[in-house]
């Protein structure tokens, strides 16, 4: 790293430029990752919060199972309860509609749950913090859904389903609501605990079974939204590797004469390669650190107005991936180092 450090100092303008590019790409990736995480949480946090080892959905016809179309009747529920290895089955109903609170009306996802997750009475309701905020409701207030009035007994949690905050009612109350909203009143999904032969049971009963995480693809909005954002993030990773690789390839080609001289003087190819990669790593680490810092600042500022998740998964992981991919890109420039012929140092005029 002896020459590499001095090159960094000598050509600080050029390295500052590529460092700034890396920082901006890191900011963009970090911001998109945070936004993706925030949107994902607004989409699926209620599903992921269900107490389940597996989730059971019902697919009608040849179409893939989806939360919007799934409907599980009592026979299927009983069959799952009686399957060997099953410890607990909770039917959960999910329907999206509008609710009216004391201050405002807002779209909510009404979850029909069994005790202990459900409120005690069939005219009671618990609100997530998002729903309480959107409806302007607090404990003791009344909230009206599809003509039924519910008394708010608790506010807590920050669960969302398909970008709407959740409210929770008793399973029987939910069935009535669902029918009034045009549904069949059957549960949407089963939260299964235990270790049955899931695939065999699901096939026998005519349902589909998946992990909570795997079930997210049954939310069409989640699939399209996260797919688009993930594509953008993936492209940015590719772009960063290309940009860093192109910069260091051009930089190393400019130094080809110096490399030949150093080899002629006795430098090993491995020492020169370590020098080149070390230099790239320094630029990447500094650039990514600056970009991550900016992401934290902007993420903190945007957190109040945008669905944004600020955490290791949306800052450190993308940063580490950028460093790894950038280093891989810079490794392309090592070809100049390995192919440089020290003989060219003799007789060359630079």
């Amino acid at each position: 790293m002896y020459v590499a450090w001095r090159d960094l100092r000598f050509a600080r303008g050029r390295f500052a430029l590529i460092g700034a590019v890396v920082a901006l790409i890191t900011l963009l990736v970090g911001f998109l990752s945070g936004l993706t995480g925030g949107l994902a949480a607004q989409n699926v946090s209620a599903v992921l919060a269900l107490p389940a080892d597996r989730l059971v959905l019902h697919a009608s016809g040849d179409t893939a199972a989806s939360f919007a179309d799934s409907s599980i009747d009592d026979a299927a529920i009983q069959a799952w309860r009686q399957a060997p290895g099953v410890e607990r089955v909770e039917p959960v109903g999910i329907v999206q509609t509008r609710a009216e609170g004391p201050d405002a009306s807002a779209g909510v996802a009404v979850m029909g749950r069994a005790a202990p997750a459900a409120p005690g009475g069939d005219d009671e309701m618990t609100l997530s913090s998002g729903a309480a905020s959107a409806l302007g409701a607090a404990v003791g207030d009344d909230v009206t859904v599809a003509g039924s009035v519910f008394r708010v007994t608790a506010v807590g949690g920050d669960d969302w389903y398909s970008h709407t905050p959740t409210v929770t009612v008793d399973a029987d109350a939910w069935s009535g609501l669902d029918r009034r909203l045009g549904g069949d009143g059957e549960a949407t999904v089963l939260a299964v605990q235990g270790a049955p032969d899931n695939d065999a049971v699901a096939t026998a009963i005519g349902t589909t079974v998946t992990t909570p995480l795997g079930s997210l693809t049954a939310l069409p909005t989640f699939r399209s939204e996260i797919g688009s954002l993930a594509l953008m993030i993936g492209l940015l990773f590719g772009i960063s590797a290309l940009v860093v690789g192109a910069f260091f390839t051009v930089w190393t080609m400019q130094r080809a004469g110096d490399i030949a001289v150093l080899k002629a003087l006795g430098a090993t190819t491995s020492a020169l390669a370590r020098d080149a990669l070390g230099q790239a790593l320094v630029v990447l680490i500094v650039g990514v650190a600056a970009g991550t810092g900016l992401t934290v600042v902007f993420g903190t500022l945007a957190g109040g107005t945008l669905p944004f998740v600020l955490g290791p998964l949306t800052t450190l992981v993308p940063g580490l991936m950028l460093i790894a991919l950038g280093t891989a890109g810079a490794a392309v420039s090592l070809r100049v180092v390995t192919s440089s012929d020290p003989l060219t140092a003799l007789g060359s005029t630079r």
Partner: protein
Amino acid sequence: MILLDDVTLTYPDGDTHLTAVDHVTLEARAGVVTGLTGASGSGKSSLLALAATLVRPDTGRVVIDGTDATRLSRADATALRRERIGLVFQQPQLLPALTAREQLCVMAELGGRRARARRRTVRARVDELLRAVGLEDQADRRPAHLSGGQRQRIALARALVHEPRVLLVDEPTSALDRERGASIMALIARLTHERQTATLLVTHDLVHRDALDEMLIVTDGRVAAPVTSRGY
């Protein structure tokens, strides 16, 4: 000591091979400046490249300070250059990012992690070498702020800082005016005698022949008998 023993070197030239060095035997002794001169294309730079272990001869032996370099692997030949050979190029070939002092210190870093043990000893010699070439007051300047003669002096100091047994010099005065050229040649001669290096110096400029202890003429890849010897 440098010994080229019945060495032949050919290069591919279309469908045939061009003989650059043709059964040459020469010896450059410690403490002696041995000059190689000849017309352009006569093979003197090829002889220097052979002595520098930058190319391997088709036949014959290249012995550097008692080691037969033709038997070495590429990695070992690189280590031999790093430890026992000093190289001065036609142009100073200094690294633009490094100060004059750092141009010398870099010689301790060439072996990567294995270089650490040499770092202290090389760095201890840096000031002495800068003084020896008369540039101790220019130690913190980069090449862009040095004259051509000063750069060549730094290149010479770089070639000697690791105390090589062998010094190979390629046309050191080609980019300098006569006065600066004479100064560099005198410096090479003085340091060769003081440090007892075996110096092989390629030149086509016979203006400075007084600085050479021995001179060999290269013609069509062959070496004639010494034409000058001062018997150092």
